């Protein structure tokens, strides 16, 4: 009787960065791939993002950031997830993130970082697989 489990993803814009073209494009692409996207809009604090993901029982949090403050926000979100016993929620991201910074974000616990020019299909495939192996 079980329906197919829906993948639920919070797409978040942390901090003050207002460039949401990428966030909105990925939100639509994930929707068109059959997922449910919780879109919280601009200027979210890490606390808001994590609480949202928990209340929404999200499988993943997608963080879009173009302001250069990625190190700060990824760390904070991942730390909070740990604090709240929710480290099983996948964190991935994209935006203006220099390639040199990616390894340290992955070390923090981010699942994947999609740089500029990544096709949305790459992100979708990755996410579907990541959610499947998680559960």
């Amino acid at each position: 009787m079980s329906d197919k489990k829906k993948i639920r993803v919070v797409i978040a814009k942390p901090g003050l960065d207002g460039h949401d073209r990428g966030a909105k494009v990925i939100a639509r692409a994930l929707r068109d791939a059959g997922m449910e996207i919780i879109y919280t809009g601009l200027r979210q604090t890490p606390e808001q993002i994590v609480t949202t993901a928990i209340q929404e029982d999200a499988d993943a949090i997608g963080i879009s950031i173009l302001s250069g403050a990625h190190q700060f926000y990824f760390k904070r979100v991942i730390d909070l997830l740990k604090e709240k016993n929710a480290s099983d929620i996948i964190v991935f991201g994209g935006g203006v993130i220099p390639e040199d910074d990616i390894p340290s974000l992955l070390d923090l616990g981010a699942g994947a970082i999609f740089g500029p020019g990544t096709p949305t299909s790459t992100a979708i495939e990755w996410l579907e697989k990541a959610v499947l192996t998680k559960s």
Partner: protein
Amino acid sequence: MSTLAERATAGDVRAMARLISMAEDRADGIDSLMKELYPRTGRAWTIGVTGSPGAGKSTLTDKLIGHFRSKGSTVGVLAVDPSSPYTGGAILADRLRMQRHTDDDGVFMRSLGARGSLGGLSRGTREGVLILDACGYDIVIIETVGVGQSEIDVMRVADTVCVVLVPGLGDDIQAMKAGIMEIADLFVVNKADRPGADRLVHEVRGVLEFLRGRDWVPTISQTVAETGDGVAELGERLLSHREYSGKSGAGRERELARLKTKIEEIMLERLSSQVETLWTDRREELLEAVHERRLDPYTVAEELLSRA
């Protein structure tokens, strides 16, 4: 180890959230968990907020949460948005206007896709209400776009239904009369600082004339959700509907109707999955026989059912 239901009712937010997902996905084991939860339900007051897209429902819900929190009630919110009929995906953005409450432990907000329910409220949504009720939220607000089936559905779930209208959106009161007038316990004219608000109030009042003489005639509140104007008064009016429902027995009647639907729905679901299993082994053969006119559909159905 305690069950998900136990953890949820003990205040574990992750467990609550997971339960709602299970109800939405119709996951295995959800029914037994619901059985565990049911005895703890029946305390929450459920408010439905419905209206056209752009009527300001989310902003109004945000302000209502604030209002009820200031009175000391805990609040659960289920915000329903349409799902894409093609992919089943959805972008759920109602939270956007309520995000300030994420820092408040007394508020739980959840966005739901309407999924396959054709504009109505999914079973997951209806069970979400029970889950939040069992978890001790004093008030559960369901916010849903008033299109098609959902506005009728919302009455089946909510104790108090509030229909939000707004001037200048081309809400044709006359056309909406049939559906909406029957379900609304209260009307809200939101964005009441806009031109046309008075006329809209007047129009609704005109329609309500037809309901004169009933025990409960819907009231019309005017709000500007953006600034919060009129929200406290709306809160009071919602409360007086709740009191009326309690005293008059109308609430009990509504609850009984709701339970009847629910029980029948559960039976139907069970039966239909049973129907599937009744003839899985003989389906091809029987279909062929009916197709060749050796048997008729009526006899086949009767015979299969008699084996149940």
